[in-house]
């Protein structure tokens, strides 16, 4: 048994080696840069973990996990410039601004670097493809549904978002507003912006509670905002009155689910996202064509088919509640 495993492993390695030489890959590692909005955000750290997983599976791949200090386009341009200077093979970026990054990323492509965007996209001219974690429609619907599920009689809800310029949050909110008529009695009273800063989000949540005494739910489609809102609701002693929901990280949200401030929330798996982005960047850098209609494999996540804007959706968002939070909170 053991012996057989070793032989099959050896055969696998031999096959892999054969593939390597047949695609004429250089001896050095392929360097794939995973550029995030800002370092020190749990979500992106988890994505980096997924990227490392993909790298280990692919072999001969080095992941450069990097990003600016604050979520600015200017900071990301400096990061991209330094990656161009290092001559990396591929850049997979979650952009702080869909337009401002385009000239810098175009220059990267001009110098032969594969560029894809994931999570927060870049305008079409600035990347070869974009990987959405899920579809905007599904997320928009999910965040409203999360709130509506726990308010059978309807009532007031408010949205606490990231920055007013955050690409993906705005798209989700727009989609959510479109689905609103499907949920009878659910009334969206305000959308406020916490800028993805804990203290500002906390104050905005306090402001919502003060301005709308009948508020039944705060929907925060951002990991910083949902945690700050949960804290604000807890501190105001309104657990049970106001349900905090939206998109959050299981590790950060475990306490809120335990206390009951949050009944359920959703998120896709950032580990899967980093993994898929790396797999796609690797495939395209190795010659896979990124054109509309093309199907590109991404390892254990299956494959994606690019639409007419060269975008693709990875998978559906996943709902976490008291039944499964303990299982996921140690993962990310």
């Amino acid at each position: 048994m053991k012996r057989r495993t070793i032989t099959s492993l050896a055969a696998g390695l031999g096959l892999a080696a054969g593939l390597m030489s047949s695609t004429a890959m250089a001896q050095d590692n392929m360097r794939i840069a995973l550029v995030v909005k800002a370092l020190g955000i749990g979500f992106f750290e988890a994505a980096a973990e997924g990227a490392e997983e993909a790298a280990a599976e692919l072999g001969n791949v080095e992941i450069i996990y990097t990003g600016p200090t604050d979520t600015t386009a200017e900071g990301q341009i400096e990061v991209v410039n330094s990656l161009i200077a290092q001559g990396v093979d591929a850049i997979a970026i979650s952009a702080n601004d869909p337009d401002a990054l385009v000239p810098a990323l175009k220059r990267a492509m001009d110098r032969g670097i594969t560029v894809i965007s994931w999570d927060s996209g870049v305008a079409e001219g600035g990347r070869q493809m974009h990987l959405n974690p899920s579809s905007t429609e599904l997320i928009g619907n999910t965040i409203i549904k999360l709130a509506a599920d726990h308010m059978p009689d309807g009532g007031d809800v408010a949205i606490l978002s990231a920055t007013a310029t955050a690409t993906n949050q705005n798209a989700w909110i727009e989609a959510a507003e479109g689905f609103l008529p499907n949920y009878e009695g659910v009334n969206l009273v305000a959308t406020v912006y916490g800028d993805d800063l804990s203290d500002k989000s906390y104050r905005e949540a306090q402001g919502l509670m003060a301005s709308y005494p009948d508020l039944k739910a705060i929907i925060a489609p951002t990991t910083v905002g949902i945690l700050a809102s949960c804290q604000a609701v807890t501190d105001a002693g309104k657990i049970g009155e106001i349900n905090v929901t939206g998109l959050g990280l299981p590790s950060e949200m475990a306490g809120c689910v335990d206390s009951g401030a949050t009944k359920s929330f959703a998120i896709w798996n950032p580990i899967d996202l980093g993994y898929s982005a790396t797999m796609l960047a690797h495939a395209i850098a190795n010659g896979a064509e990124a054109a509309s209609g093309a199907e590109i494999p991404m390892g254990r996540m299956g494959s994606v088919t690019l639409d007419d804007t060269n975008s693709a959706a990875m998978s559906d968002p996943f709902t976490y509640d008291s039944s499964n939070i303990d299982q996921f909170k140690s993962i990310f």
Partner: protein
Amino acid sequence: MSTASHFVPDRLQTPLERRLKSWESLLMLVAIGIFIANSFASPYFLNAWNLSDATFNFTEKAMIAFAMALLIISGEIDLSVAAIIALASTAMGAAVQVGVGTPGLVLIGLSVGLLCGAFNGILVTGLGLPSIVVTIGTMSLFRGISFIILGDQAYRGYPSDFAFFGQGYVWWVISFEFVLFAIIAAIYAVILHMTNFGRAVYAIGNNATGALFSGIRVARVKFIVFLMTGLMSGVAAVCLTSRLGSTRPSIAFGWELEIVTMVVLGGVSILGGSGSIPGVVIAAFVMGLVTFGLGLLNVPGIVMSIVIGALLISVIALPRLWAMWRPR
């Protein structure tokens, strides 16, 4: 006490000695040290194109830093510069939507900069308000207007020849921005170090009342320096907008502190009265080289900020410590 061998100097320092012991020389040493360290640390550093790319990290900020140096030397400060960039960029973006061409856009960018500078200048010199308070206010005001106009939207569609200012090259790897940076540096060096106006700026910074009684029109000089700072913010707005090819209200967010850091690192006393343009030029290179060098090593930006902070404190503290403990 022996009195036999006391050397009595006829002057405090020879010009050469003064130059060698100056802030600029110290900073130059730091810059050379960083350059050498970078060339050893990363194989990608010594490459003409990469070094050219690196200059974009500081050219726009440095343009404002020169005017800011004059302002700080005269005893004032302008924290609204980054917000002026946002407002000027928004105005240019709005103009694009109604079909204004490149020359018009540049004119609008510079004019908005000038107007904002004049607004700050009037509040400070006309009403006698402290500049730090006024410009903290206008910082929110100018950027606030951009946010009201744009919200979460962006202005795009800049004409293709407009891209030259931020993405064009004059010759080989020498970018337009870098040439502009050099020209502006030279102009400000002349203004500050070779004109009556420059002497007046120093005089006001050292003793505004004394300067007033010496016949210097203090308010007018300060107003002009505010205008210059606004104009430079307009110039930086043109370059940055052209480089990004789009405008969002968050453009250049947080630059004011980086610009003040550059000025102070360049040896300008935050209390006013002293400093030089060559110092600011070297400081711009130091900051650009540090961030680019660390970027090549993929050092996280948080660590970069710590390094810049440590650099600022140590470069400022070292001469003080030296003066305190040197053998007398």
